[in-house]
């Protein structure tokens, strides 16, 4: 017999198990690479880094292993963790608000918006590093999000799921074309852009992490605030309105969270397909449709998936590596297809 109490206990223990798994993956991500480190070395290096007075990323030089951990692996792992978390939550929010199991940041034009302004700024100002074009990418996601949600909400603020996704497709196609026009005009922009657009957490400076972290934190906060309202919205607009939900305000809250999370994540690591699409489906298997659980689960699973993909990418193509965006697609697509084949999809 399953009572409400056992369901809640199962959800809670599931979350604990997943978080433990996430921590193990974090350690693996620090240990595994072109030069693999033993667990003891990793522990020492992380311990020294964390207890360092100047913060984990600005410590005086130590051993080579410590250098690798502090200078490369730690920022990379942290970046993968937070962007995965952000993209997972953003995916759950987008699917919830659009009531469309196919929706993700890519489909609604946020990635394309970020990519367009990034490419444009690379072309106009000759930027070469992410810290320079990150703000443009962020603004691009915001503008694209506003246009998509705005266009589908014109007239009474009733954004139907279908018109939202159609508007997203229209904006994506337009922005992609504009991006392509820019990179066709300028070979240097193409050269920078093609390495950004695959989606990678490698070689990103710790500064990138600090720049996006406030936005991500605020986004997560908004997502948690939005989740009870999202539960009511999933009953349908009429019912939600009847239960006293201010639908316009609830949607605006959701939009703000989505743009913050996926815009900042995309700006930091490039457009990552699949994560936002797959993660909520995985989470829903355990949690069911309750967004108060679905959102934390999606965050943890998102971080876990991005880290695992990044680790595999470092191992399979030694001495080089596969970018995490490519890895996620290569691992995520077959998984997603198997998932679609096996389960009767939860309708939203």
């Amino acid at each position, binding site marked *: 017999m399953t009572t409400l109490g056992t369901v809640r206990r199962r959800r809670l223990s599931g979350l604990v198990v997943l978080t433990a798994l996430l921590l193990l993956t974090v350690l693996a991500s620090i240990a595994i690479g072109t030069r693999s480190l033993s667990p003891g070395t990793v522990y020492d290096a992380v311990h020294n880094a964390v207890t360092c007075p100047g913060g984990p990323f600005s410590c005086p030089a130590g051993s080579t292993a410590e250098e690798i951990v502090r200078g490369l692996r730690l920022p990379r792992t942290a970046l993968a963790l937070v962007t995965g978390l952000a993209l997972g939550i953003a995916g759950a929010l987008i699917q919830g608000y659009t009531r469309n199991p196919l929706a993700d940041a*890519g489909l609604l034009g946020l990635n394309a918006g970020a990519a367009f302004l990034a490419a444009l700024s690379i072309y106009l100002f000759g930027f070469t590093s992410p810290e320079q074009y990150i703000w443009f990418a962020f603004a691009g996601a915001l503008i694209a999000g506003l246009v998509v949600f705005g266009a589908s909400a014109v007239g009474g603020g009733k954004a139907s799921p279908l*018109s939202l996704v*159609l508007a997203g*497709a229209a904006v994506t196609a*337009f*922005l992609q*074309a504009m991006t392509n026009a820019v990179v066709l005009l300028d070979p240097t922009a193409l050269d920078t852009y093609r390495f950004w657009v695959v989606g990678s957490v490698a070689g990103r400076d710790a500064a990138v992490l600090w720049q996006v972290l406030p936005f991500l934190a605020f986004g997560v906060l908004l997502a948690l605030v939005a989740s009870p309202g999202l539960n009511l919205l999933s009953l349908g607009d009429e019912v939600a309105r009847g239960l006293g939900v201010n639908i316009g305000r609830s949607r605006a809250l959701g939009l703000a969270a989505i743009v913050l999370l996926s815009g900042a994540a995309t700006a930091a690591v490039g457009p990552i397909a699949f994560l936002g699409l797959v993660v909520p489906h995985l989470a829903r298997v355990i949690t069911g449709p309750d967004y108060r659980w679905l959102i934390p689960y999606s965050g943890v699973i998102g971080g876990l998936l991005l880290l695992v993909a990044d680790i595999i990418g470092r191992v399979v193509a030694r001495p080089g590596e596969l970018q995490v965006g*490519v890895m996620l*697609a290569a691992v995520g697509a077959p998984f997603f*297809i198997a998932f679609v084949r096996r389960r009767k999809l939860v309708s939203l």
Partner: protein
Amino acid sequence: MTLSLKTESVRPALRVGPVSLVLRPIMVLVVAALAAAMLLLFCLDIATGESHIPLGRVIDVLTGGGTRAQRFIVLDSRLPRALTALVVGAALGLAGAITQSILHNPLAAPDMLGITAGASFGAVTVLVIGGGSGLAATLGGPLAALAGGLLTAAAIYLLAWGRSPTGDRGVTGMRLVLIGVGMNALLLSGISWLLTRASLQDAQRAQLWLNGSLNNADRSGLLPAAFALAVVVVVALGSARTLAALRLGADTTRSLGVRIQTQQAILIGAAVVGSSVATAVVGPVSFVALAAPQIARRVLRTPGEPLIGSALIGAILVVGADVASRSVFPADLPVGIVTAAFGGPFLLYLLVRMNRKATLS
């Protein structure tokens, strides 16, 4: 009292073999207007270029007149390009109309289902590995594109085969769309990865092709494209009634005596051939297969995606984009960039207008 049948209220129908169409005067007028607009753009496309030829002279040459020099420019150098644009556009429009009708999803165009991406992946692989020059690029690229599109479609179809929620075996629309979206993301990411492996020069060449360029369109590509279009047209028009029935849902269709799986497979096959060949010939011209059926549906005010209307709109979009790319813009932009630049905002405008109407009524 005599029994009288009100025959005048029955709409006149056109029957050619198994094909029968109900004729509505307004619809016939709109289709004729679209065809006229398409022909005008077609002539304009031939007229524009490095040396401008007056429109009257173009029509003169096309109907058999003109000097030898004019005949050379019009018939040998510009006509293949304009015809390629026309054929590619029509094929994409039709392919989009078929897939969107069958899958009951306005987003289920070949570009969203990964078929175009599969074709692109094939072509870019050859370009990156073969170095983008010589025989491998001129012959291998289009062939690899065709193979990529067909393989991707076959993979999606096989993967989508299984037991549906109602219990019978076959392909369900929703699963097909989902698996297609998955394949699309995989292939697009694969293309991005290939581009990071290429030399900058090859990456540039690939980028140009990836935007659908008519610059290299000549007779060699036109023939296969026209053949593919012919196949799609024949299959589509032969199955127009099935498409209309499929719109009513699987159970209703079955009760009307249609063998759903076979018909679906044939129709999807035709759409795949059409869009793959179009991609092989000029590269992925984005947005036409997605937008043309939706625009046609609204222009013609039909409940589903109209076949002939979608083909006409598709051709208008691509030919018009080619004219615009060479007359409006300073640089000779690939036609795919122009179709998206115009198609994107237009679909957005249609959506906004539709939303307004829905709230007014």
